């Protein structure tokens, strides 16, 4: 067993050192899909989260609870729902999106959307006591209030993005179903690991897992550095 792990680390560093073309392609697609999914979900989810934190409207509480519950949505269930939508026999079948990276972005985007909404809401609600008076005195309200608070909360929101990114890049159930794990088309890190495991190539599978971890580490370090260069690392490290 120990041997497998040692070999796996050696293999992982060999992959990285040689910039193995197949591995690079898989890493690239993983990043492309998960980053795009998180970015799109953030565009929709952050204002929605801020609105839930800042505005009182009828039905707000049930929405908050529902969004919170959806954070636990099993990726494989979401994948199945997206598959049924995008399948040629499904309502969006004419778009021909099944088994494309776009389908994977849609699935992962929907997967992380509740996380971004719920965590943004909490981040902004936590800051609101501090800002409420100032905003009222400046008469900032509506969309401007949401925009201002999102800006003020930007460092806390980085943590939200990282949480969402972590969920997206680590997920296998949804991308397997809607992407199909097609070589040179829709194969990402997690589905490649699943495939190599099923081929009995356990060392290679663990090596890919090491690469995936390094990837996640790099993204986190990147965000941390951005926060630090901006002169505020409390939000990220806290």
């Amino acid at each position: 067993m120990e041997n497998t792990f040692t070999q796996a680390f050696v293999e992982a560093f060999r992959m990285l050192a040689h910039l193995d073309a197949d591995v690079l392609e898989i890493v690239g697609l993983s990043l492309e899909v998960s980053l795009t999914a998180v970015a799109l979900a953030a565009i929709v989810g952050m204002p929605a989260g801020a609105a839930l934190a800042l505005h009182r409207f009828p039905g707000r509480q049930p929405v908050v609870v529902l969004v919170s519950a959806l954070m636990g949505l099993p990726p494989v269930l979401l994948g199945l729902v997206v598959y049924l939508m995008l399948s040629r026999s499904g309502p969006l079948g004419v778009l021909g999106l099944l088994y494309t990276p776009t389908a994977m972005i849609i699935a992962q985007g929907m997967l992380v959307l509740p996380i971004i909404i719920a965590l943004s809401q909490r981040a902004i609600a936590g800051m609101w006591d501090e800002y409420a008076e100032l905003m009222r005195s400046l008469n900032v309200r509506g969309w401007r209030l949401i925009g201002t608070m999102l800006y003020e909360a930007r460092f806390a929101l980085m943590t939200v993005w990282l949480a969402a990114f972590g969920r997206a890049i680590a997920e296998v159930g949804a991308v397997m179903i809607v992407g199909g794990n097609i070589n040179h088309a829709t194969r990402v890190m997690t589905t490649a690991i699943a495939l190599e495991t099923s081929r009995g190539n356990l060392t290679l599978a663990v090596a890919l897992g090491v690469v995936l971890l390094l990837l996640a580490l790099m993204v986190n370090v990147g965000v941390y550095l951005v926060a630090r260069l901006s002169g505020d690392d409390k939000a990220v490290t806290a």
Partner: protein
Amino acid sequence: MRVFFLALLAFFAWLGAAVAGESIILQSTTSTQNSGLLDWLLPKFEKKAGIRVKVVAVGTGQALKNAARGDGDVVLVHARALEEAFMRAGHGVLRRDVMYNDFVIVCPKEDPAGIRGTKDAALALKKIARTKTRFVSRGDDSGTHRKELALWRAAGVDPRGESGTWYLEAGRGMGATLNMAAALGACTLTDRGTWIAHNNRGDLTIVVEGDPKLFNQYGVILVNPKRHPHVKEKAARAFIDWLTGPEGQRLIAGYRLNGQQLFFPNAGGDGKGAHDGRDDPAGAADHQGQQPAEREFRGIR
């Protein structure tokens, strides 16, 4: 909001179209992928025909269901009864035999059920049930799972009553099931191709092989373009012709791992008894998917 949503959809549709190019989707089984056969064959076809073949590897049952929904152009599977039902339902318009190999029963070396060398697969399963030796079933409606259930029926045993005790339904692909059997010290039924290619066999070894009931025929099917107009019929036919033609057949025969041939080409029948006159005893009378290739079948080992 609605406009935004529609714009987003249009953007995605454009993205989808941009990456498409000339390609077909092949719904296939985990055995053809896990054995490495498709990785060996497809680049050669792609180079020659300029058509990308995108493989979705799932169990035979799921492959046929996906294809019935229109999510694929070609199907390459191995469960004769399911394939024929698929054709009867009008989901496919053309079916051809492609190749065969055989199934084997693998158990831990110490042979806990005492079945090593048994020539009758059903009798072997009966002994596994009697000794309550752990057996991992695919349990995923795949071609291999179908074959296994047929063997249990032949043995007169209904193992599903014992599910969760000695009979374990994995619900996974062939390779993952072999991993489980190796880890648990259990027996399982596997196609020989995946077995030869599998790198994590643990203590497992072949204990039963050679029963004609273990014959494993693969067929290729064109998804009905009339029912699913987006099916790329021309490219799909080109692939089927190549796979069942001289070059594809020669390459299938040439795929070897560890000095062993994994699949044996036997195209030439369209499943209705047709024959193209080549020296091919297998395809000719292959209606039940059992007897025809027996002569060659005995030569696998």
